[in-house]
């Protein structure tokens, strides 16, 4: 049995609020089931459970904001045995009782009683924590208490101050009050924190290449001409599939930089940057994009866009991307040089599909071209790898029938 915890749904997430429990105590759950909806500044995210079992206890009611890592529910085998392991159980972990040992009622009673439930509107903050908050310029409204009964202690204030420094913003930043659903201002804050971190911490290197898209576009036009409109492919499908396949050849750019080291991922989960009308951006995962047919990929993209805009993205889709692709599509600028989304190792950008003169076999020819760029984390890879990746994407797009 184990605790189902508030997941970190991105480098910029510190806390989340359970908006809704989709399962109740006693329900059987399976790996991958969506069991709760969590509200973040990216909007409502559906959160999955990663084991089979029975919901034995729900620890955090809807509406309560808790830090990442907080146990939200206990998943067990249905015997109820997990209740004793629940972190709310107040008994200290004393030495196992010896035979004949008696309880020490008064000894137990004299321990400071954890506040049972904070009164409405009255936060419990230790005197020392208040002094630290004043000294560090931390707004206690932004601090989540992790002490007994949720009391705010000095360590919570110090961590909040550390986070504020790490994210490069002056505390306080978050507006007071609860948010439901998508809040463009909060998402802006989230993007600001993640991108500031990226720019501050990741030594980026950039590479560009111009890719001749004539073969790919011819193939796509022919393929789509045979398809009813509902089954047509978008040109972005080719870019994503080519990038996913190319990453298999250059795996050192696929994965994460964690704890001072590159951790290449075995699978290729493409984070596809989706602009939200009304402001904002998210890059949820297309899982195992390298193994999908173009039709399956197209279906996955349609599904993802629809859910990104309606607030139905799942937790795993927020955390799994091993690389991000940003594609400016058929409009916009010719090239994009993006910032890597931490802790990923790279970002691939595609500019506008444009007609441009290109030297082909010693003659200038007007062709559809796209400028592909790579932003790489120089801690984890060098320009040579980046060049290999762009070259591999180029080569794959010259043989679209193989995608």
């Amino acid at each position, binding site marked *: 049995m184990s605790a189902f915890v508030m997941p970190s749904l991105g480098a910029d997430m510190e806390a989340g609020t359970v908006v809704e429990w989709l399962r109740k105590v006693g329900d059987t759950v399976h790996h991958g089931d969506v069991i709760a909806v969590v509200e973040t500044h990216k909007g409502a995210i559906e959160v999955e459970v990663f084991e089979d079992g029975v919901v034995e206890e729900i620890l955090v009611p809807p509406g309560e904001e808790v830090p990442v890592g907080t146990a939200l529910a206990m998943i067990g085998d249905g015997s109820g045995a997990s209740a004793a392991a629940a*972190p709310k159980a*107040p008994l*200290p*972990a*004393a*030495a196992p009782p010896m035979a*004949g*040992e*008696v*309880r*020490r*009622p*008064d*000894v137990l009673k*004299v*321990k*400071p009683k954890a506040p049972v439930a904070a009164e409405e509107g009255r936060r419990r903050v*230790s*005197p*020392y*924590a*208040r*002094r630290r908050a004043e000294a560090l310029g931390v707004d206690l409204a932004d601090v989540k208490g*992790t*002490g*007994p009964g949720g*009391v705010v*202690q*000095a*360590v919570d204030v110090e961590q909040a101050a550390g986070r504020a420094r790490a994210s490069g913003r002056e505390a306080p930043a978050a507006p007071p009050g609860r948010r439901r659903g998508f809040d463009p201002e909060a998402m802006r804050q989230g993007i600001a924190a993640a991108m500031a971190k990226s720019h501050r911490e990741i030594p980026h290197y950039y590479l560009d290449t111009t890719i001749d898209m004539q073969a790919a576009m011819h193939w796509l036009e022919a393929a789509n001409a045979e398809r009813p409109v509902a089954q047509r492919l978008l040109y972005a499908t080719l870019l994503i599939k080519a990038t996913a396949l190319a990453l298999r050849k250059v795996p050192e750019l696929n994965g994460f930089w964690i704890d001072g080291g590159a951790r290449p991922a075995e699978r290729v989960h493409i984070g596809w940057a989706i602009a939200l009308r009304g402001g904002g951006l998210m890059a949820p995962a297309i899982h195992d994009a390298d193994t999908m047919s173009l039709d399956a990929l197209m279906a996955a993209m349609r599904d993802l866009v629809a859910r990104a805009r309606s607030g139905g993205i799942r937790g795993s889709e927020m955390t799994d991307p091993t690389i991000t692709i940003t594609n400016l599509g058929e409009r916009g600028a010719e090239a994009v040089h993006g910032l890597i989304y931490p802790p990923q190792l790279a970002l691939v950008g595609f500019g506008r599909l444009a007609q441009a003169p290109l030297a082909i076999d010693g003659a200038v020819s007007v062709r559809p071209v796209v400028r592909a760029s790579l932003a790489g984390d120089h801690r984890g890879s060098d320009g040579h790898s980046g060049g290999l990746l762009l070259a591999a994407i180029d080569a794959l797009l010259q043989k679209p029938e193989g995608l």
Partner: protein
Amino acid sequence: MNGDGTAAPRLRLTYRDAVREAIRDALTRDERVFLMGEDVGRYGGCYAVSKGLLAEFGEDRIRDTPLSESAFVGAGIGAALNGMRPIVEVMTVNFSLLALDQIVNNAATIPHMSGGQFAVPLVIRMATGSGRQLAAQHSHSLEGWYAHIPGLKILAPATLEDARGMLWTAIEDPNPVLIFENVQLYDMEGELPADAGPVDITRAAIRREGKHASVVTFGGSVPKAVAAAETLAGEGVDVEVVDLRSLRPLDDATIMASVAKTHRVLVVDEGWRSGGLSAEVSARINEQVFYELDAPVARLAGVEVPIPYPKHLEDASVPQADTIAAALREMVGRR
């Protein structure tokens, strides 16, 4: 170190031996000093502290008394008023209640009521605490009661060094001084320099440095607190142990400095909780360093029952190393 720069040889001895050495030293230093109490002479003391002293110093200076605490404590007060330096041994703190009138109404008040004309340079030693299966009439910890009384000084030696060193300083003090020797400590073994001597009797001592939480305690609970701190050190929690040493007056400065350093404090007292010394220490911390506290002041005290006779119940009725460790874990939110 001796004055000539060479280290004194170290002696291996028990707390009991250290107390005996302190008495022998005092008897040797000053001819006005004598030891008086029940069974201190021929029997050698009920805890064998004074064993051998009768043969060494004779009946004038090692005096067996009738079984009347009021009488022999009163006699000690009279001797002190008349220029002697008596050491009165009371078998246990429970029996000292028979002499409460002499201690509270006479010893503690005469210097005050005489406008400072008469000093009472009396030392009363008594055994205190549980742990020897002596049941409810021989095992209580009433130091906190005596620490309530102005005019008395109350000491709780918890180490060999203090058992050896506090007595002479107490004898030199013009006020009546009560020394509480916890019965669980008598068999504690350790080493002392052969030239160990008097120590100050006004300051608390840091027995172990730490930064995450403080335990403030005294007497028999000090070794338990140190053991609990060692256990928690293995769990990444660094606990400071403050040994009060003097229960009256309390050394507020040392207590508050420790709390200001660790921001969490557990007060451990083998005595009962209600109205006990732990309540006094807790109140002072709240009065003086409230804004340093990152958690409520916690207390671990004796269960509020007469100390039971059966071993497992007796052990369960007072703080032990494991319960101290558990209380600390909860206080630091070991998670």
